[in-house]
């Protein structure tokens, strides 16, 4: 209890300090002064931009809630109670209502810094009303996701939920009265009045699916394993099997390494989902530098860093699959280092393409000379090594006493496990981010980038990691 309270106070103080500091920084700075790109193009008015961000956040809540359930049962409940001919409502309703309260509270709290940073002229009570209104929007989003569980989610039903969120996203920005809050509360109440009597009708397989996904995600969070969290939130594997690259695979090869490289290339092409997420993060990285001239350059670079780490994490699926089946690495007469290089090839190419596109776009927008693209491509190669390195994270060691932290006891090697892979990704991105910050590519930065990327690849190739 004491640790939880201490952790909560620490987090609130850190967030509060950050918000206040950022607000002062933004208030004090002149637009266009020391920004990432030379010419800022405010293509969207600030107010609309904020509403778009709020809307995207609510859409994110719906998508996430739909993946996690939100109406679920655990594995044991499913085994014991689902086969029985009883009303399932008392079994699923309490946990669903708990989730609603949690989402409403978290959405409200999260909205407070956003409100403070984006609207300077509001009174504290107006910030509070806006935050609670947004929290109500979060409740509507989760309830809407639960409504989608009642019947097969057609495109029309999904589109209806997403359209309904459009006006809700705008309501927190109207703060002259409490009317927006009343409107959101009424909508949430109406949706709940429709859902609650029917919540027992959600199909058993859907209840189990949600329980399995949310259980997997919760375990990943408990173990601070971001890779596993990402996997848990990926949509359940569909029956569709990809056969991309079949013709390429059928061509003649010479030697075991060429055969392995070809297998890794084809496996990568087949397991990679459409590059929607990578493109969204690319767009966000470019957009945040172009459309938010008041945002400090350090924050813009932080967004790029986070986007780079997340996109990198998405390219390590083949490496993870082969790490799980360690014998795959011993299948062919090739040294382990070469096997690991082969696994790294496609993630490195994919990330080089991504960072090349990012730096290319920034160069077009005036961030610097075309040499930036070279730096980006080099950085991408190192980031790919980070993706492969993250696939062989050490398992949690429960044999030694955990370390006490303000957030509770944590297994001793948890932090090194969390950082494995991310360390090399960040290392490979550092010279690139430094060049973006400076606005110029000094020859030393190219050498530094070469060293950083080579180090990342060498570390990945030479270190097998724990099995």
């Amino acid at each position: 209890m004491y640790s939880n309270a201490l952790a909560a106070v620490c987090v609130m103080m850190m967030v509060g300090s950050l918000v206040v500091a950022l607000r002062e920084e933004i208030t004090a700075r002149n637009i266009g002064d020391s920004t990432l790109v030379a010419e800022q193009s405010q293509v969207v008015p600030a107010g609309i931009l904020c509403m778009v961000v709020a809307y995207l956040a609510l859409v994110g809540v719906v998508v996430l809630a739909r993946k996690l359930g939100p109406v679920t049962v655990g594995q044991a409940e499913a085994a014991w109670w689902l086969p029985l001919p009883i009303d399932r409502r008392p079994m699923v309703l309490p946990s669903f209502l708990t989730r609603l309260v949690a989402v409403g509270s978290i959405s409200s709290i999260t909205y407070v810094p956003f409100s403070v940073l984006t609207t300077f002229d509001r009174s504290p009570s107006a910030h509070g009303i806006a935050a609670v209104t947004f929290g109500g929007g979060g409740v509507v989003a989760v309830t809407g996701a639960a409504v989608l569980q009642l019947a097969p989610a057609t495109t029309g039903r999904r589109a209806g939920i997403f359209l309904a969120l459009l006006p809700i996203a705008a309501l927190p920005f109207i703060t002259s009265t409490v009317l927006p809050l009343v409107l959101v509360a009424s909508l949430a109440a109406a949706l709940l009045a429709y859902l609650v009597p029917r919540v027992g009708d959600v199909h058993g397989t859907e209840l189990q699916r949600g329980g399995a996904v949310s259980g997997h995600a919760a375990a990943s969070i408990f173990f601070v394993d971001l890779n596993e969290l990402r996997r848990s939130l990926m949509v359940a594997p569909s029956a569709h099997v990809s056969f991309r690259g079949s013709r390429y695979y059928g061509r003649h090869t010479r030697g075991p390494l060429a055969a392995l490289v070809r297998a890794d290339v084809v496996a990568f092409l087949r397991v990679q989902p459409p590059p929607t997420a990578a493109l969204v993060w690319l767009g966000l990285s470019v957009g945040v530098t172009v459309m938010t001239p008041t945002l400090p350059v350090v924050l813009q670079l932080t967004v790029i860093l986070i986007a780079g780490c997340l996109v990198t994490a998405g390219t390590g699926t083949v490496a993870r699959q082969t790490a799980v089946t360690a014998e795959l690495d011993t299948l062919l007469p090739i040294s382990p280092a070469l096997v690991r290089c082969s696994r790294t090839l496609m993630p490195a190419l994919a990330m080089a393409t991504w960072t090349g596109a990012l730096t290319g776009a920034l160069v077009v927008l005036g961030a610097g000379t075309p040499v930036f693209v070279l730096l980006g491509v080099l950085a991408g190669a190192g980031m790919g090594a980070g993706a492969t390195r993250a696939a062989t994270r050490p398992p949690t060691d429960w044999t030694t006493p955990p370390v006490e932290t303000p957030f509770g006891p944590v297994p001793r090697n948890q932090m090194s496990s969390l950082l494995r892979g991310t360390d090399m990704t960040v290392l490979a991105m550092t010279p690139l981010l430094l060049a973006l910050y400076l606005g110029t590519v000094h020859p030393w930065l190219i050498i530094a980038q070469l060293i950083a990327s080579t180090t990342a690849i060498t570390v990945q190739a030479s270190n097998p990691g724990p099995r």
Partner: protein
Amino acid sequence: MVGFNGAGKSTVVRTLAGRQDPVAGDVRVHGLPVMPDAVMFRRQVATVFDEDVFFPSLTVREHLLLVARGHSVGAPEEAVDAELDYFGIADRAHAVPDALSSGQRRRLLLAAGFIRPSSLLFLDEPEQRLDPVMRDALSRRIRERADAGTTVVVVTHDPRLLVRTATSCLVIDETVTTVGTERGAQIIAGA
């Protein structure tokens, strides 16, 4: 190699194949220390254990093609077709491993073990999940491979497979003894 459950048969072959460290002493294969990461060791030693060792996204044919190409098998396409026919999975050649039945996955594992050249082949209960017809085909295949000069070490609970393929039988119990194959078959049957 025969013995009751838990006697340590799989532990012995896994140790010989370099999959786990010896409990005591040291292990030598072809007079050399076991080095599972060495290219030469990987080239000479083939294993078929109980784990499904597949690229999940490669088809049956592509997986065998990878092993054949990786071990420089001449005319790999033809070799793959021959193995697919021999192990009765030609009609599943374009399926991914997840789409195979348990027995078909076993056949794929065996095909991958036999398609590549090796001087030492470890098979851990290869008869598992196979129907009687395929077990007979497997015993013929083991015999052919042994006649061609490969040392084949088989852990089995199938007396018929033992009698039809083995030239000697190691019984692992509280002690390790060598017996004839007929006696080995009797031990498996509990006689």
